[in-house]
């Protein structure tokens, strides 16, 4: 019997994605577990695995299609010798599965609406309540009812119908709903630079449609700045001891082969932050309306810059991992992040973030909290500065680190205490290797 293959949700927040590539052609035999297509979301590229067997009767969504809604039919699977039905609607639905989610798949068979679970959601016993992160609120693949006129005006104005509340019959979106909505794209482009040339038409700004990642970054960070009362605490940390330790450690690496390693300052800072959180766990928390969640595990999200955005892959239980493990893991995650190959559970659900801009030579900066976490540490460049030791001027390699904290969950004194703990660890770095 013909079945629909539906656009899978690769993450709970995913509402649409790009069908970047078909790995099977129409007429190909498909076996359960075969990879049939590649799907790109705001954050990752994933392969989609077939659940059922059959012949790929028709590809409904051609490759390269953007904005494919979750649960929209992307292909029709038929039995050998069966005619391909004309109407997609006629075929009952079978969801395709993202390939890497083998563990989650059994659960998904029982509950199709929750078929993809990031690791932290699946292992909810580790921290009950954490799954209720605000970023997971949007129901994936909701069908939007709108009048044809409303659809047309929305597309002309660049308004996403999914963001509107319909006031028509049964919540149908009507023209008035679209006309009352504020356009997402600014009506007028900012004035072009340079003096206007008299008589010449003003130069048009180049219009670049926002990628789905840009939209997610915009939405999540706006939410954070609007809803999370940030406060900031800065401290100067001397790095000489840590740099010296790093040189000695790296000198111990074998010249080649599997055991080779090269610890970076960033790797050491991940471990240092994790240890500071263990010493002072009041920052390893999440604020919710009813209660504050204290997480027993310390999972550090590290901001990685990727083309047109950033992503925060996670070093889980970083306090319990060796520098060598952290280094290898961070390198692998960063590489796969840049390739768009991260799995959802690899970037969803950390407990604290680090943003390191040291390599750009900045003196200091403050970061926006990555909700629902309660804190993020902004690490600037280490540079030689004059420091006062006793009554003597001396030269030290100093780094300014700025902590951003959710004041709903953490007060200033605790933030300062934590930063001092971090400074002690970095300036006396042996705890990083013990």
């Amino acid at each position, binding site marked *: 019997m013909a079945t629909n293959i539906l656009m899978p949700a690769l993450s709970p927040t995913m509402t649409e994605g790009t069908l970047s590539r078909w790995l099977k052609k129409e007429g190909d035999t498909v076996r359960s577990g075969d990879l049939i297509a590649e799907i790109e979301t705001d954050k990752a590229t994933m392969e989609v695995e077939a659940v059922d067997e059959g012949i790929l009767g028709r590809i409904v969504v051609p490759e390269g299609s953007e904005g494919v809604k979750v649960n929209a039919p992307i292909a029709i699977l038929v039995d050998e010798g069966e005619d391909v039905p004309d109407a997609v609607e006629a075929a009952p639905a079978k969801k395709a599965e993202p390939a890497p989610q083998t563990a989650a798949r059994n659960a998904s068979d029982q509950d199709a609406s929750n078929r993809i679970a990031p690791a932290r959601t699946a292992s909810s016993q580790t921290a009950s309540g954490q799954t209720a992160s605000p970023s997971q609120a949007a129901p994936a693949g909701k069908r939007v009812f709108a*009048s*044809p006129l409303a659809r*047309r005006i929305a597309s002309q104005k660049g308004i996403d119908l999914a963001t509107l509340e319909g006031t028509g019959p049964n919540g149908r979106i009507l023209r008035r709903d679209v006309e009352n909505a504020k356009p997402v794209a600014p009506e007028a482009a900012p004035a072009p630079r340079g003096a206007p040339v008299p008589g010449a038409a003003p130069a048009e700004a180049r219009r670049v449609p926002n990628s789905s990642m840009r939209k997610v970054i915009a939405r999540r960070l706006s939410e954070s700045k609007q809803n999370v009362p940030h406060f900031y605490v800065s401290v100067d940390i001397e790095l000489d001891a840590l740099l010296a330790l790093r040189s000695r450690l790296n000198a111990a690496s074998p010249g080649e082969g599997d055991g080779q390693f090269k610890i970076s300052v960033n790797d050491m800072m991940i471990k240092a932050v994790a240890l500071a959180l263990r010493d002072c766990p009041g920052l390893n928390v999440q604020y919710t309306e009813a209660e504050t969640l204290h997480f027993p595990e310390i999972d550090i999200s590290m901001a990685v810059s990727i083309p047109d955005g950033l992503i925060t892959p996670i070093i889980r239980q970083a306090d319990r991992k060796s520098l060598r493990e952290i280094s290898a893991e961070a390198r692998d995650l960063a590489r796969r992040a840049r390739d768009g190959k991260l799995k959802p559970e690899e970037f969803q659900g950390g407990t604290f973030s680090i943003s390191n801009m040291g390599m750009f030579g900045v003196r200091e900066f403050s970061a926006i909290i990555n909700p629902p976490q309660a804190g993020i540490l902004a690490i600037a460049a280490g540079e030689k500065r004059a420091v006062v030791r006793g009554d003597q001027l001396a030269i030290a390699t100093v780094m300014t680190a700025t902590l951003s904290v959710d004041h709903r969950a953490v007060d200033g004194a605790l933030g300062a205490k934590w930063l001092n703990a971090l400074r002690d660890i970095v300036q006396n770095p042996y705890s990083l290797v013990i």
Partner: protein
Amino acid sequence: MDKFDLIVVGGGPGGYVAALRAAQLGKNVAVVESTHLGGICLNWGCIPTKALLRASELNHQLHNLAEFGFSAEKVSFDIEKVVARSRAVSRQLSRGVAGLLKKAKVRVFDGRAKLAGRDGKAHVVAISKDGKETGRIAAPDVILATGARARHFPGLEPDGDLVWTYREAMVPKALPKRLLVIGSGAIGVEFASFYRNMGAEVTIAEVADRIMIAEDAEISGLAQKAFEKQGIKVLTGAKVGPLDRKDGTVSTRITTASGTTDLVVDKVILAVGIVGNVEDLGLEQTKVQIDRTHIVVDSFCRTDEPGLWAIGDVAGAPWLAHKASHEGVICVEKIAGLDPEPLHPLNIPGCTYSRPQVASVGLTEEKAKATGRKLRIGRFPFLANGKALAMGEPDGLTKTIFDAETGELLGAHMIGAEVTEMIQGYVIARTSELTEAELKETVFPHPTISETMHESVLAAWGGALHF
């Protein structure tokens, strides 16, 4: 004193529909009707005039059979029988309304209703018959659906004998030889068409610079041409002088831009608008606002007095039965705590059942232009439509007006055979907010005159196929 959930004053197309809807929603409802269930629409308006117009179309066809290869001699009619049939249709429908109300367990009170203060939170309604109070009922909500009546002008007062309103015009004892119709709205034009097709000499005098002023100017121009072709004399920009009634005739002088016309006719029909029935309802002691004989209401038919509602003609233009009925439903659903959609005036179709028929919805070309929007306008003549030709109805036009940017159907205007039955297609399009894309995609049955609706849309967007 009997207590109800809802009292409806007036049993016309607004009131009785409101009562039926309220009964459906489980309300205990009373209707107070002074004269006849079904109101003007059913007894003295829409329905009996359609019966008359049907008879006049038959008369026209019987005198134009040669085109179809027929011949008939000594074709004649008995005006009394024509009128009798029209009355019979009205009676049948009025009885039907009574049956519907009975089945819905709506209590119908025979008499005039007048608000008589409050009993606690409920409005008290006093009912009287022949000037004597026959009872009092009360309900927290009262819907006023008292309708409207013909407007009178100083110097042009009707007398029921030589100078008629719609009321007398509907039940002629004899066919007038010469007739003057003052006013060219739907009512005036329909009577002009009826009497002309029955054989009378008809003159229409319209004070505005064109007839059927509510319609698109192009359509009203086509209507005027069609009427003139049938032998109706149409005077626009016309001021009618005093009506001189003498020896069973009426003489008057009509002044237009091109001069004066002295006219002697047997009958005059006044069709110069209507006034709302707001008198003697006890509104003085309420907060109800009245603006030029109409009760002021909001988009859910609420008056300024809590618990008092008004629908239909008494609540303002357009004075159309279907508007009244729809308001009745909206009003009752609002009272019942549902969440109805308010009535959108531009989605109310207007129909005139003259020969040719005229039907429209939305903005005229003139009003569409005034919005400043870029327009796309399509026209398709009946002359290019197979069914219209086969029917012997080649005179007609379907005109559509779109917003060029959004594809919104701003207005649709039709003149010709059967257009009153077809306009609903465009009304659905407007109500559902369809664009030209869906109308273009729609498969219209062949052969029908409705194909002109499709072709007109195609014409607006780059080319009709058959013209």
